[in-house]
């Protein structure tokens, strides 16, 4: 997953909706640490999910609650 952190802002923006969708649609959101969840919400509300830190948080959360879906999504976007 580390290679996705090397994407530029444009690249990250293309993936954000899909990753956020995985998190919001997952029944396993309780597997995401509260600390990460609150930070994602803060980034979402300030419109800064696309920055490197926001993107990193999204990847971490999706990997916690639905790693297989995340992997499939990222593979499909390559």
């Amino acid at each position, binding site marked *: 997953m580390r290679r996705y952190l090397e994407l530029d802002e444009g690249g990250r923006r293309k993936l954000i909706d899909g990753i956020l*969708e995985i998190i919001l649609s997952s029944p396993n959101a309780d597997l995401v640490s*509260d600390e990460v969840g609150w930070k994602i919400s803060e980034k979402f509300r300030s419109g800064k999910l696309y920055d490197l830190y926001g993107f990193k948080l999204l990847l971490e959360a999706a990997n916690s609650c639905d790693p297989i879906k995340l992997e499939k999504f990222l593979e499909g976007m390559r």
Partner: protein
Amino acid sequence: MRFSFELVPKHPLWKLEIVGSMAENIGIDGIWLSEHPDNRSSILTACHLLKTFTRIWIGIGVLNPYMFHPLTMAQVAATLSEIAPGRVYIGIGAGDRISLERAGIKRTHPLRRVERCVKIVREILRRGFYDDEEISIKLNFRPRSAIPIYVGAQGRRMLRLAGRIGDGVLVNHTNPDLLESAVNEVKNGVEEANRRINELDLAAYLTISMGEDESRALKAAAPYSAYIISGAGEELIERLGIDPRVVEEVKRVLRAGDWARLYQILPPDYIRATAFIGGIDELKEFVAKLLKLGYTQIVFGGPFGPRVLKALRMIGEVVKYFRRI
């Protein structure tokens, strides 16, 4: 016409906060937080969301008089009004019979209990105290704004009661025929109380599953339909045209938590009878029909769809459409 979301505090608070933020962005007026004893507290969730957001109102819906004393309800509502005056609603209903039984509580005389509860809560919120031959209670502080009381209703007699005593009614149906007959029952109650229908906010509390792929939308709605069917009384099951044998099977499957089996035994028609399945155009048509029937608030409730973010944006399109016309 008002539009709101139903959010279920089974999800972490940060996730509810994200959906709440989306709700504000797409022009939703408010959020109803459903109360289930095995989920997060709707009251504490309301407290957090009211502090977080500055525009949308929050309704707690619904609290039942078996688990919450009327004084507690009034205390909660009045305290929340201190955080967000004018943005607090409270829903009162009989509660889910099965959940109450699991907690060792018998849901006796639901009509009488709800009517008395609404009366007491209203009196305390308006005058600061309630006195009768049985109880004498008061609040040591005043609510900071008027707090409308909605009555959650599904059966005919509860709908009629809601029409008599509610500032609003949360009609807990999605089936178009039942939503239509519910309006008539509420109107009967309104007439009995010498009120006018436009004095109350008539809310259709819908189960929604939106998506481009119908089979996935049906699958997302199946557990919701299963809970609706398993909690429905005989009369409602008959009116929905559901085979009672399937109801028993659904109850067994729910107890076992066997979701894979649920999708096998629950026919798509039964899911459609209890949940809205469709896309933007179908939802526009449905909402238009409800507004024509006299509904003044549309509550979009879960699951929203197999892809939640996409479904919320689709709902946003529908809301935008009705804001324009």
